[in-house]
């Protein structure tokens, strides 16, 4: 059984207008997505800005009221508040936020910040608690004197590590990491990514790793889902996605990643322009008449893509030929 099973999740934000302030339409931030996260893996969720990544992440931790669908954890649907309470869900599922500064209460000392989930879920006496916090600080590589400092006294990377410490305080099974390194410099980003990997190795945590940076995702994730306009367009292993992308959108995304190899930049650019051209020309084929992605179709045991039937057939055929 997977750790988390997300089934046809929909989150629509109602937009009210008109005379009686009725809901006239809704922003379909997430519009029917399904995927599973296995224990111990890092699951990547990639997509353009506004594609619904954060909304998905927030729904999984229970921060967002979902419109329909289910998120199963230990056999229970945690989209219901009562189930979350009963399971002590947030003991097991935590979140790391993109903006490390705003996710740490600037008025609280590090000790109180890290201890917050402990205080809510575990009854510890003052000393035990302090000890746990110190251990956690040690895990994320911060000195004990951090205890009484305030968030703004730390650098971005350190703060993000504090966020990680808080997230792992209750020994969670899953951590939702919503763009944990997007705001960080290259060298600091490396620090944080290393930590996340390390903790995963040591504690067996799973991640839902949300990012728009395909380079980082490739570095971190075993399985990747590509999100577009509130739907998934392609899911697969790292290899599936990076080496055998099938959806035009995935291809376009991959082509847009800047290449660090200066020697081939001209080719890379031409390749990108070509993909872009194809994208512009063939867009319609890949989306239904409402501009939505098609339902996912499984191509291989690990690889699914949102394509209309005819294209799938073609690809299967060609794929066989290629292989």
């Amino acid at each position, binding site marked *: 059984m997977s750790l988390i099973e997300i089934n046809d999740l929909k989150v629509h934000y109602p937009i*009210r*207008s*008109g*005379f*009686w*302030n009725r809901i006239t339409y809704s922003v379909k931030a997430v519009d029917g997505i399904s995927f599973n996260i296995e224990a111990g893996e890092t699951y990547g969720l990639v997509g353009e800005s506004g594609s619904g990544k954060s909304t998905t992440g927030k729904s999984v931790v229970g921060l967002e009221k979902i419109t329909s669908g289910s998120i199963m954890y230990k056999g229970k649907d945690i989209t219901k508040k009562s189930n979350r309470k009963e399971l002590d869900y947030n003991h097991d599922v935590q979140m790391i936020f993109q903006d490390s500064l705003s996710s740490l209460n600037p008025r609280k000392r590090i000790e109180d910040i890290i201890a917050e989930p402990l205080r809510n879920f575990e009854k510890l006496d003052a000393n035990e608690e302090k000890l746990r916090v110190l251990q956690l600080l040690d895990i994320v590589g911060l000195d004990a004197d951090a205890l009484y400092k305030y968030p703004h006294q730390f650098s971005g990377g350190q703060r993000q590590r504090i966020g990680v410490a808080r997230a792992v305080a209750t020994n969670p099974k899953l951590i939702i990491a919503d763009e944990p390194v997007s705001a960080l410099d290259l060298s600091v980003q490396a620090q944080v990514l290393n930590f996340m990997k390390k903790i995963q190795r040591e504690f067996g945590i799973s991640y839902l790793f949300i990012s728009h940076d395909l380079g980082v995702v490739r570095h971190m994730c075993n399985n990747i889902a590509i999100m577009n306009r509130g739907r998934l367009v392609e899911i697969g292993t790292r290899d599936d996605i990076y080496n055998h992308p099938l959806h035009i959108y995935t291809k376009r995304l991959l082509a847009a990643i800047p290449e660090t190899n200066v020697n081939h930049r001209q080719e890379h650019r031409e390749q990108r322009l070509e993909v872009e051209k194809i994208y512009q020309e063939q867009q319609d084929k890949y989306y239904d008449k409402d501009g939505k992605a098609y339902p996912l179709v499984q191509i291989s045991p690990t690889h699914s893509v949102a394509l209309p039937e005819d294209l799938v057939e073609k690809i299967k055929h060609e794929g066989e030929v290629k292989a």
Partner: protein
Amino acid sequence: MWKTILRRILIMIPEIIILSILVFLLAKAMPGDPFTGSINPKADPAQIHHLMKINGLYDPWYQQYWNWVVHLFHGNLGNSYQYQEPVTRLISGRAVNTLWLALFTTVLTYCFALPMGMYAAKHEGKLPDSIIRIYTYVTYCIPFFVILVIGIWIFGYVLGWFPTTGSVSSTANPGFPTIASRLYHILLPGILGALFGTVNIVQYLRSEVIDAKGSDYVRTARSKGVPEKDIYRHHIFRNSLLPIAAFAGYSITGLLNGSLFTETVFSYPGMGLLFINSISYRDYTVITALVLIYGILNLLGTLLSDIILSIVDPRIRIQ
């Protein structure tokens, strides 16, 4: 947009109804009645009874309220007991005075406040800024009526530059002289009210301008090679003034509050003075009507502000 405005107005209705009941009850709860106030030995208490009765003042409050509402739907707010004329007519006469003064004060307030706020912000932290800041603080701390009383004393009596009572000279001929005389009468209260009313606008504008000064789009304008003078003109002031425009509506509340004082000090027959008089005469119909009108004006003020804002600021469209 018209739809939105209409909806806002519809939302106002329950508020107004609740207010009307509240005011009605409160007015009735005041000790005394409209007729005893003018007690004189020639008046026969039996006649006062009689008057109370024919005016329905012995009925239970809900009966009175209901009658009042029924009349209201005929555009009739009842008769003033003190003035013995329809409240609508009485108040409309006074409202003209109050609104005329309020309008004038608003215009003057902006005339004073805008240059002050901009000047202070442009020279942020320097002497003119400090002087303007101190000025705003002092006016903020002095009770309004003290300014009025001292003002009328100096300019009205000692220097004799302005009339000190009424809204128009009794000998002014109709037409232009009357208008001139009216203007002359509201000049002093208007100026004093404006001097007092600048505080909020000056401070708000100042902080707006200071914010705008450091904004990215101003930096963009600089990088375009726009001279400093034009940057202030086309970007900073323009952008800071727009939110200020919306103050006009909100300032109605302040002006109406101030009208109680201005009109008392200047014996200026507007709604504020009428209210104060009606309180001591227990002129229920007038009290109720005035509180209601002030409440509705407050509401309209906020509505006006929202409308202004949505017109001047392309980013905002009333939802």
